[in-house]
């Protein structure tokens, strides 16, 4: 890996906010948690549809403007009721 390659954690296609990850991976919070230390800073890449480490990188990287941990609102994925 080149030291100057921008990493996934700064990419707009990368989701690593804990609350969002738990919404995107149903069941994760039942017997684990996105707030757990074992997750480190991993997140979901929407380009490759993969769960990757924050220090990974690829040719499709696009820098995001918001901070990496700032949740991006997805109203359609936030129903009023759990069921």
């Amino acid at each position, binding site marked *: *890996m080149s*030291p*100057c*390659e*921008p*990493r*996934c*954690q*700064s990419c707009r296609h990368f989701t690593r906010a*804990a*609350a969002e990850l738990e919404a*995107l*991976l*149903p*069941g*994760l*919070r*039942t*017997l*684990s*948690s996105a*707030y*757990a*230390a*074992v*997750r*480190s*800073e*991993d997140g*979901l*890449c929407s380009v*490759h*549809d*993969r*769960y*990757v*480490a*924050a*220090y*990974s*990188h*690829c*040719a499709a990287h696009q*820098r995001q403007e918001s*901070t*990496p*941990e700032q949740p991006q609102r997805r109203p359609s994925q*936030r*129903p*009023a*009721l*759990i*069921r």
Partner: protein
Amino acid sequence: MTNIAELSNPAIAPRETLWGELIHKEDWWAIWIGLGLIVVAAALFVDGGSLKWIAVAPLKWSHPAEVATQLREHWTQYAALLVLWAVLFGIGASGLRIKLAQFLPAFVVLYVSALGLYFLGQWNQASHYNLEPPLVALALGLLLSNTVALPRWLSSGLRVEFYIKTGIVLLGASLPLTLIAWAGPVAILQASIISLVTFGTIYYTSKRLGLDPRLAAVLGTGGAVCGVSGAIAVAGAVGAKKEHVSIAISLVVLWAIVMIFALPLVSRELGLSTGVAGAWIGTSEFADAAGLAAAQTYGGYAGNVPGIAGSADAAVNAFTLMKVIGRDVWIGVWAFVLSIVAISRWESTGVQTKAGAGEIWRRLPKFVLGFLLASVVITLVTHGYSYADYKKSVLPGLVAPLQVFRVWALTFAFLSIGLTTRIRDFAAIGRRPFYAFTVGVVINVILGFILSTQVFSAFWTRLGQ
């Protein structure tokens, strides 16, 4: 892994700082809360005081009128305990960026439910009707979450792992360092055997069934090391597909819930001692929360079910030694090794990554450090007391209140498991992953039984005494 070139590149956002890690990860909040309670309790004890007033718990009862009497006489203590827990977990939730306006009302509901469950467990006929609190919490939660539309705000307070980790840190106060040093190597040996065999079985079966090696690794770690936490740690390290993670989550949760009911039931039928059953559960359950539910259930049989030898705490102690010390702490090593294999042996995914030994620390379940530190604190404070003095003053004044806090924290977790398990949310698993994982489950349960009841039976029986 960060180097000067990366830090100087404006296109690269900074990684989580050490301070950020300390306040944004629930492992650390479990340590602050659990260890904080232990340090305060120890300081008060040394000064002649105790936390036992606020560490209130229901007493045994046989008639509902006695419950009303207990509540009337101790309501101020129960209210104070609610405030204490709400403040501690509320601060933690705030650090995790969970909205307090949603968390606090949800936590009040959880506390009141836990109180009801705690009272139920103290009914003198509870064991007769198999009304063990962890099992009732799970069954009730499953029923509610899968039949009733629960309000969204309630989910903010259902943090299984946050409560279970806090409970495990508090559990460290009940285990002297000498016991951990004595039992730790055997737990590590037994857990290593089971982890390697189970991982090998699931991985080999998955490959034979033509599954992606990354899915095979994620499933293998989920079954062999630490359930969903093991699965996501390895998934991130090897760059697994999103659907691989979802499949692993569904399979682990499914089998873990089956085992919560099955392992105590079979152990009871076989009349296993609490220490032996705890070791088996620690070897063959997949997640800490699920295993503690099963172990605490079995510990509840001691003294209540004829033929069950050993102390009530032995099941939870043996489980924790086996699962936490024997299996959980190795998550980072598994992730590191498999990331090397992924880079060097498996087909590229289009995402470039690298393997580093730093992975071992990054993915270490840090709450284990709190568990060990808790044991160190209690060992130091109680050093020099004779056994008679320990029973007379240390146990009621220091250890017992911390055990009560632990039971509360675990009860919050058990309620949260059922209430967050919605079967309709499970990902479509597919036959091949199901077969591969299930073969591993069968081998794990059989081998775990042989190791716990035959090979190391004398050791675990002794622990229970």
